[in-house]
C-alpha cells in the first residue's frame, strides 16, 4: 500500500472529474475526517486515515481491500473506474441520465442505453460527457458516457445509442471476480 504519485493522482482525478467535475474537492476535504487515496496492487482505494492506519499493520500480500475501491490502473497506466465508485459518484454527479423501467434490465446486463429506453437526461449534456445512470426511482444503476448531446438525443431515432455503458451495478453479480 502506498500513496499515489503525482502522475497517478492527476490521471485519476481527471477521470473522476469527468463525472463529478469540481465536486471532486468534496471527496478529499470531507468534514467528517481526512480521507485519502492509496494504491495497492494497482488498485486505488479511497479510505479514511483512521482505517488506513489499521491497514498499515497488515502485510501487503495479505491485504485484500480497504475502504472503497475506486478503480484500477491498467498496465499502460490508464485509470479505469469501477462500479464500486458509484456510491461516491452518484451524489456528486453533474450530468445524470434516467432510464425507463423497461430498459433497466438491459442496462444492468451491460448493454448500452438506447434512445427508446431513455427517460430523462440533464439539460446541456455535451457529447462524450461522463454521466451517471439512474433508474426512474432515483436508484443509481451505473455510469457511462453520453453518446449524444442532449439536443441530439431529441433528434435521433429510437434505436440509436445515447449512453455508452461503462459500469453498472449488475457487475456485482456478473463480474464478482474482477472486483478483486
Amino acid at each position: 500500500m502506498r500513496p499515489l504519485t503525482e502522475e497517478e493522482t492527476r490521471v485519476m482525478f481527471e477521470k473522476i472529474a469527468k463525472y463529478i467535475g469540481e465536486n471532486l474537492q468534496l471527496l478529499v476535504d470531507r468534514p467528517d475526517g481526512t480521507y485519502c487515496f492509496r494504491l495497492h496492487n494497482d488498485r486505488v482505494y479511497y479510505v479514511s486515515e483512521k482505517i488506513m492506519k489499521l491497514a498499515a499493520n497488515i502485510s501487503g500480500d495479505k491485504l485484500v481491500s480497504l475502504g472503497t475501491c475506486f478503480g484500477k490502473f491498467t498496465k499502460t497506466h490508464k485509470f479505469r473506474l469501477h462500479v464500486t465508485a458509484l456510491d461516491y459518484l452518484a451524489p456528486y454527479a453533474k450530468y445524470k441520465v434516467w432510464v425507463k423501467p423497461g430498459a433497466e434490465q438491459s442496462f444492468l446486463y451491460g448493454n448500452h442505453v438506447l434512445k427508446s429506453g431513455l427517460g430523462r437526461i440533464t439539460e446541456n449534456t455535451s457529447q462524450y460527457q461522463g454521466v451517471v445512470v439512474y433508474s426512474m426511482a432515483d436508484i443509481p444503476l451505473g455510469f457511462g458516457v453520453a453518446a449524444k448531446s442532449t439536443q441530439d438525443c431529441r433528434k435521433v431515432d429510437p434505436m440509436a445509442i445515447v449512453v455508452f455503458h461503462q459500469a453498472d451495478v449488475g457487475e456485482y453479480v456478473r463480474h464478482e471476480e474482477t472486483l478483486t
Partner: protein
Amino acid sequence: MGRKLDPTKKEKRGPGRKARKQKGAETELARFLPAVSDENSKRLSSRARKRAAKRRLGSAEAPKTNKSPEAKPLPGKLPKGIFAGAVQTAGKKGPQSLFNAAQGKKRPAPSSDEDEEEEDSEEDDVNHGDHWGSEDDADMVDDYGADSNSEDEEEGEELLPIERAARKQKVREAAAGVQWSEEETEDEEEEVTPESGPLKEEEADGGLQINVDEEAFVLPPAGEMEQDILAGPHAPAPDLQRVHKRIQDIVGILRDFGAQREEGRSRSEYLNRLKKDLATYYSYGDFLLGKLMDLFPLSELVEFLEANEVPRPVTLRTNTLKTRRRDLAQALINRGVNLDPLGKWSKTGLVVYDSSVPIGATPEYLAGHYMLQGASSMLPVMALAPQEHERILDMCCAPGGKTSYMAQLMKNTGVILANDASAERLKSVVGNLHRLGVTNTVISHYDGRQFPKVVGGFDRVLLDAPCSGTGVISKDPAVKTNKDEKDILRCAHLQKELLLSAIDSVNATSKTGGYLVYCTCSIMVEENEWVVDYALKKRNVRLVPTGLDFGQEGFTRFRERRFHPSLRSARRFYPHTHNMDGFFVAKFKKFSNSIPQSQTGNSETATPTNVDLPQVIPKSENSSQPAKKAKGAAKTKQQLQKQQRPKKASFQKPNGTSKGADSELSTVPSVRKTQASSRFQDSSQPAGKAEGIRESKVTGKLKQRSPKLQSSTKVAFLKQNAPPKGTDTETPAVLSPSKTQATLKPKDHHHPLGRAKGVEKQQLPEQPFKKADFQKQNDTPKGPQPPTVSPISSSRPPPAKRKKSQSRGNGQLLLS
C-alpha cells in the same frame, strides 16, 4: 453311425435358430434345479420340481416362510396333504388339518422334504436377511408363528408366490377369527423360533386384516439386521413406507416402554433398530445419527430429521445504510415479492415467502439495499452489539453478511477488520461490502490463528468459526454422510485455537468493549459447549448473557462431560423449534489481558483479575491439591461471573499498570487455582507483598481452601490494585478483598473503605471456610453471593451496579 448316436436327441449347436430353440421344460429346468437329493427327486413330480426350482431362485421371498419351519426340521416327511402339518410342531396338526380341509390341497409328501431342505438351507438361523425387507412391519408378531409356520409349510412347497398368496387368502377366509386365535395361542406357546412373526409376509398379509390393531409391534430378531448386510446386493430394497411405519412404532413403544415392550427384548435392541431405520429413511450416516440420538429425545429427533429435509425460509436483512425496511418492503412488494417482517426480535429482517422475480437479482439488491442472510446469522451480531467508533475484528467473515451488519450498526464509523482464510470466498466479501456501501472495513487474508500477532487490541471480536455444518443440513445434505468422528474433532481443535487467538485479540481494558462472540452453525456439543468451556479454562474470560431472549440454553452437562454452569447463558437454535438454521451463540467478556499460565504444581496464585468475590467454593476437595481441577475452574468461573461488576472497573483502571502485577502472577494458574485463595489470605495479612503472600500461601492453610476462590478473587483484585497504588501493597491487599465484592470503585475511594473492610475481611475468611465446608458439594456459590452478582447484572451499567454490589458485597462478606 454308432448305436449311441441318436439323431433325435442331437443337440443343436451354433449360432443358428435351431440352437436357440428351447429343448423342453424338463431339460431347461434341469439347469436350475440343484443336484437333487435322491429320495426327494424321485418323489417330485415335474410340477413340483419346477416349483422347487422357482423357489430356489426366488429364495429371497421364500425365507420368511421358511423361518419358522427351519427351526424345527420337519420331522420326516409329513404328507403333503397336511400342508399345515408340514409345519414344525405336531401340535399344530389339529389346526393345520383344518387348513388342510379348508384348502383341500394335497401336497406330495416329498415336497415337505423339499420344503425342509429349502427351509433348512435357507436359514438355519432364525435370521432371514430378506425378511425384514419384505416382512410386514405391522405384523411382526410372532403370535402367528405357528400359523405362519403352517402357512410357510404350504409355501415350503414349491409354490409360486402368487399361489402362496392365494392359498393364504383362502386360508384366511376359511379360517374364522376363532381359528386364528386358537392357533395364535397355540403358536405362541409353541413358538420356538424367535420372531418368526415379522418373517412371514404372508402371515402378515392375512393377519393384517384381522389383527392389525391388536398385534403389538415386534422387533425383528437381532439376526435380521446382520442379514440385511449379508444379504448384500440381492436383498430387496427396504420398503420406505414400512421403514417409516416401523420408526413410528418404535418411537411409540419407547415412549411407553414399560407397557409396550415386547418381552425379552431390551431397550437397546429397539434403539438399534430405530437407529438403522432412521439412517435408512433419512439417509444419514451412522456416526451422525448416533450423535443426534444422544442430543435429542426421540420425539424431537424425528422432528429434527424432518426439518432437515426441508429448506428454511429465505430471509433478508435491510441495509440501513442505504434504505429503510419499510421502503424496501414497499419496493419489493411492487416488484412482486411476498414478504413479511421477520419477527419482533429483528428490526431489519424480512422473510420472503415467494417471489415472482429472482430475489438475488433485483435492482434493489444490486443497489445494495438488502442482503440475503439467514435469520440465525443475524443473531451473533445482535449479541455482539458493536458500538460506533469501535475497532472490531471479524475473524471468519466470508461471505460478509455479519461484517456488513456490524458496519451498518456502527453506521460506517470506527473500523472493522474483516478477515478470512479462504481467498476465493474473500472475493464475495469484497463484492458484498462494496455493494452494500460499507466504507469502514479493511479486508485481510490471514489464517485466524495468527491474529493477535498481526494486530490486536480490538474492542470486540466476532468469531464465526468454521464448523462441521450439522446445523445447516437442509442446505447441504452431504453433511449427513460425510462427517465422522475425525471431522468433528478436527473442527473442534481448529475452533479452540481460533477462539484462543480471538480472545487474545480482544482488549480487555477497552472502554466500551472487551466482548467476544463465538458462534457456529453446528449443533454438536463437541464444537460448541466443549470449545467454550475450554476457553473458559484457558483464558481470563467469562460468559455473559447474549441478549437474545429466545433460543434454548446451552448445555451445562452432556453425557460424561460437565461444563461450566455459565454456559447456560449461551444459546442454541434448532431448525425444528425456531425455524432457522441450527446455530450456537456464546458471548464472552474478557476481564484481563493477562494470559494465565498452564497450571504448574506449586504456583497457584490466581491472576489478579481473577480475584473477586470470595465465594465459598465447594472446592474443598480441590483445595487439597494445587492442581487445578475442572470443578474448581468451574467454581472459579462462577465466582468470576458473580463479580462482573467489580471486575469491570478494576480492569479498566489497573489494567495498564496491573500488567506488571499480572506478570508476576502470570505464573499463577488461572483463578481456578484454589491456592489463589491462599494467596488472598496471605495478602489479607499485613504481609503485604504479593510474592510473599504467594509463597506463604503455598504452605497453605488447607482449611481455607474452600474460601479460596473467594479469597482468590480478592487476591486477584489485590494484585490489580497493588501496582497502581504502588506504595501501599498492604492497603490494596486489604482493599481488594473488600473491593472485589464491593465493586470496582475508583481507587481513590478504596483507601478509606479498604482499610475498614480489610479488617473485616480478615475475619471473614473464617466464615467462608465454614461455609465452604457446608457447601462443598454445591456447585453454586453461596446464596448471599449470587444476589450481588448474577450474570444478568453484567448488562447493567457498572456505576449503578457498583453501589449495589458494594453494599451487598459487604453483606455477603459478612455472611460468608
